């Protein structure tokens, strides 16, 4: 039985604001950024705001409110407004929600948007658990763990212990991303880096150094999704949503936020189950993917996703990256735009917009002949999410 979602919807519009280093977008407001990205994406699709009837998001970040967005942009009638839960990577999942709604007839043109605007002040001076987060956090925070990179570094440390993964392996990810961003006119970090630069960067949370980290950025990116049928009549080359998946194994659970995952997949990204669902739904496998946009908050977590998604066997992602497998001319070009490491960090939404441009054949760093792409939203706690897109 062919899954009903398969190829039934398409991403027909992509839009972005100018990109900024953290805190540089003020005095614009976050809704102004989001609105500009949406207007741009709707124009790109050749549609108008009158056509839009759905809004989806990944909820973390800034907690967008459909009420204000619809009022601000003059959307005549909202029929669908949903949000991916969790604090992990949900931009592909939010597009999955759009596809599901369209497929079910509950919306026809759905905008998905992800803005980012970094606060210009520090919000905390103690390890007190933020209200509503739950006392389980105190089992972590009493140690001075306050940042996602610290938690992910403990996962990657375990991978290094089990498989001999090295800092050079992670460095290969950072260097490849920067090289790709160097050709992107709108990237926030374009100066090339070498392995010497990487290895001499200051240590942040050992084994993660400064260059293992993504940027903190301001800006917004948006997509427009509609039915594959309607996409045929629109101006841009349609990019079909081949499959969408979100979730994760229950025992992964809070994942990087609790570190209680079973030993058998602790040194991992949590994407094993999501990847299996994705390929099953798509009816294709990792060998069929031409280009992959892999959420890259930390370079080591890119490696672990490559393993969970079947591009490499466990323990083999590091050598694969170091030998050039992830580069533009490699077996699996990864983060062709430079990712959150070097292009811009909008909570993973630009991984989606880049994949769409690759499938249209109009990317700056176009992978020649690419017809199928995979996008992940990022490993953290459940749900993780991912998409497979293909040229229409």
């Amino acid at each position: 039985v062919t899954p009903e979602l398969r190829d039934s919807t398409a991403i027909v519009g992509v839009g972005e604001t100018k990109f900024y280093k953290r805190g540089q977008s003020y005095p614009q407001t976050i809704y102004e950024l989001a609105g500009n990205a949406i207007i741009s994406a709707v124009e790109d699709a050749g549609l108008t705001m009158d056509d839009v009837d759905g809004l989806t998001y990944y909820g973390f970040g800034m907690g967008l409110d459909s009420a204000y967005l619809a009022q601000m942009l003059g959307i005549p009638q909202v029929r669908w407004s949903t949000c991916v839960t969790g604090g992990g990577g949900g931009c592909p999942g939010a597009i999955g929600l759009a596809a599901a709604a369209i497929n079910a007839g509950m919306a026809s043109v759905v905008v998905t948007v992800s803005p980012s605007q970094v606060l210009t002040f520090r919000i905390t001076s103690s390890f007190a658990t933020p209200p509503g987060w739950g006392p389980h956090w105190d089992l972590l925070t009493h140690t001075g763990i306050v940042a996602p990179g610290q938690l992910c570094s403990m996962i990657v440390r375990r991978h290094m212990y089990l498989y001999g993964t090295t800092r050079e392996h992670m460095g290969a990810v950072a260097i490849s991303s920067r090289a790709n961003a160097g050709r992107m006119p709108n990237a926030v970090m374009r100066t090339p880096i070498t392995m010497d630069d990487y290895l001499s960067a200051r240590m942040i949370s050992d084994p993660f150094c400064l260059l293992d980290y993504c940027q903190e950025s301001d800006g917004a990116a948006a997509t427009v999704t509609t039915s594959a049928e309607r996409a045929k009549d629109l101006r841009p080359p349609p990019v079909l949503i081949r499959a969408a998946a979100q979730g994760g194994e229950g025992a992964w659970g809070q994942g990087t936020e609790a570190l209680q995952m079973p030993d058998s997949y602790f040194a991992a990204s949590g994407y094993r189950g999501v990847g299996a669902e994705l390929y099953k739904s798509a009816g294709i496998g990792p060998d069929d993917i031409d280009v992959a946009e892999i959420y890259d908050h930390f370079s080591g977590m890119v490696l672990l996703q490559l393993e969970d998604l079947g591009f490499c066997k466990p323990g083999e992602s590091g050598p694969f990256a170091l030998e050039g497998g992830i580069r533009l001319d490699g077996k699996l070009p990864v983060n062709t735009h430079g990712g959150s490491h070097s292009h811009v960090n909008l909570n993973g939404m630009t991984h989606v917009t880049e994949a769409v441009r690759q499938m249209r054949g109009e990317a700056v760093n176009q992978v020649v002949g690419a017809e199928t792409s995979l996008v992940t939203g990022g490993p953290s706690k459940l749900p993780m999410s991912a998409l497979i897109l293909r040229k229409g």
Partner: protein
Amino acid sequence: VKLKTPPDEHVKIARDKWTGPFWEAAAQHRLAIPRCTNCGRFRLPPGPFCPRCRASEVDLVELSGRGRVFTYTIIYHPVMPSLADSVPYAVAAVDLDGAEDVRLMGNIIDADTDDVRIGMEVEVVWVDVAPDVTVPRFRRI
């Protein structure tokens, strides 16, 4: 380089019905981990249901506090300015002897940055960081 620990005044503990008993035992310098009375699975973070059998009731099982470092990080960058004098500090996830299903987090103390290894045998050291706050840390044995 000698490992440090975060400033005492930063540590704040919120408790609820399920995590409270862990911290009450900690105040008495005892390591007590909840274990499902129905199926015997240990439960961290402490919570209202057993993920294996959905039962609620737990016994608090007192453990020796010995274990092995499962993984760790050494934090060099003070994410908050007030941590500037507290780096480097190490955070370990420790497999506890006698409780296979869970890991306990704690700072490694009385060690240098180069001493910390996965597999290293450690024991819990209770540190009273405030009159009403006691936290588990780990020392090599």
